[in-house]
């Protein structure tokens, strides 16, 4: 769309800007202030300079949490993206079945995150859970409070359950926007199913998939409530991710300075990743419009 250059548009932005600035910029400034001081209360505080950043960057617990976080994020992306595409291809296109399937698939997304944790706790417990009891009946001593591998597998399964619908729905909407004429043309050319997927469906999906990957990556980086309820970060600290380490430090131990420094490092990682994705999306749209114009 050809947009008009008009700086009066700022007046339309202004109310939103004030609100978001109130809840984003003021707290961010405070975090920066915390990060260079040892704060006991508003009157008792000492300037520490970059000390907290140095400690945090060299803190083995946090480094481990960061590594775990990346491992977790990439694992779930590797599972959810193909699975989501597959489900989107399977979903009925019209009729009451389409609505019913849509509603059922959306359900996990609408459950409060700690309830998701509770559901999976109830589902996987060795004494009362369907899955827990089921796996034990099969002869495997499944125990998420003792065995880190079980805990990991369960958390990944839970996340797949919780968030694959998002990818599936994104892809479904991408597929729905392909005109029928494309499929007809493919039929006339006797294109194989794979060719239809590769040359008609996948290109249409890339746009939504980038959004999906971006959202999933960001949300998996913030994951807190689900593992907190399900495993409490355990056994040991095998399922403690970044958000939980941070929350424990900030709320549990009241270490304002270190946790603020850690928050900023965390935020910088997020900022870099989201900038890369955003630039990718924008360049893709630019390419699309260029092709459309040509």
């Amino acid at each position, binding site marked *: 769309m050809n947009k008009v250059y008009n700086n009066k548009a700022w007046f339309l932005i202004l109310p939103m800007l004030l609100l978001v600035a109130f809840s984003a910029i003021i707290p961010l400034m*405070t975090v920066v202030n*915390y990060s260079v001081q040892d704060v006991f209360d508003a009157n008792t505080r000492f300037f520490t300079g*970059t000390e907290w950043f140095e400690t945090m960057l060299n803190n083995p617990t946090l480094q481990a949490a960061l590594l775990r976080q990346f491992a977790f994020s990439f694992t779930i992306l590797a599972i959810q993206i193909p699975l989501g595409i597959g489900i989107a291809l399977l979903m009925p296109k019209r009729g009451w079945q389409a609505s019913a399937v849509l509603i059922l698939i959306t359900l996990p997304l609408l459950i409060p995150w700690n309830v998701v944790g509770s559901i999976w706790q109830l589902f996987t417990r060795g004494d009362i859970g369907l899955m827990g009891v089921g796996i034990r009946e099969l002869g495997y001593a499944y125990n998420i409070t003792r065995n880190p591998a079980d805990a990991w597998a369960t958390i990944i399964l839970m996340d797949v359950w919780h968030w694959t619908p998002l990818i599936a729905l994104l892809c479904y909407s991408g597929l729905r926007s392909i005109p029928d004429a494309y499929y007809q043309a493919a039929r006339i050319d006797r294109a194989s199913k794979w060719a239809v997927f590769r040359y008609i469906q996948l290109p249409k999906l890339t746009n939504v998939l980038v959004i999906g990957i971006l959202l999933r990556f960001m949300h998996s980086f913030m994951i807190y409530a689900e593992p907190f309820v399900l495993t409490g970060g355990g056994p040991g600290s095998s399922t403690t991710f970044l958000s939980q380490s941070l929350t424990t430090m900030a709320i549990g131990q009241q270490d304002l300075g270190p946790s603020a420094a850690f928050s900023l490092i965390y935020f*910088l990682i997020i900022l*870099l990743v989201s900038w890369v994705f955003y630039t990718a999306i924008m360049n893709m749209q630019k390419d699309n419009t260029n092709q459309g114009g040509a």
Partner: protein
Amino acid sequence: MSWMVWTVPTAIFFSTIGAMLAGMTVWEVVSPSIERKGFLPISTTRGDRLFIGLLSAAYIHLAVVGFTDISIWFALAASILWLLVLMRWG
């Protein structure tokens, strides 16, 4: 405001950022920026280059503070230099 626990260095930091944004806005009004391609792999506007510069400056500082014993002032000098290079040729 006291709960925000301001310090002089952070106040200077935020004023600098604020001044930069204000300066960029004025510059943009006086002579609008044109997107161009320099040594960076993507074509950028002035604002994009400033953002890339600031973000990489943050990472330079973190690397210096966290993993070396070099004074933070060297990191600052390096960042400013990098920012200038980026603004001119990026």
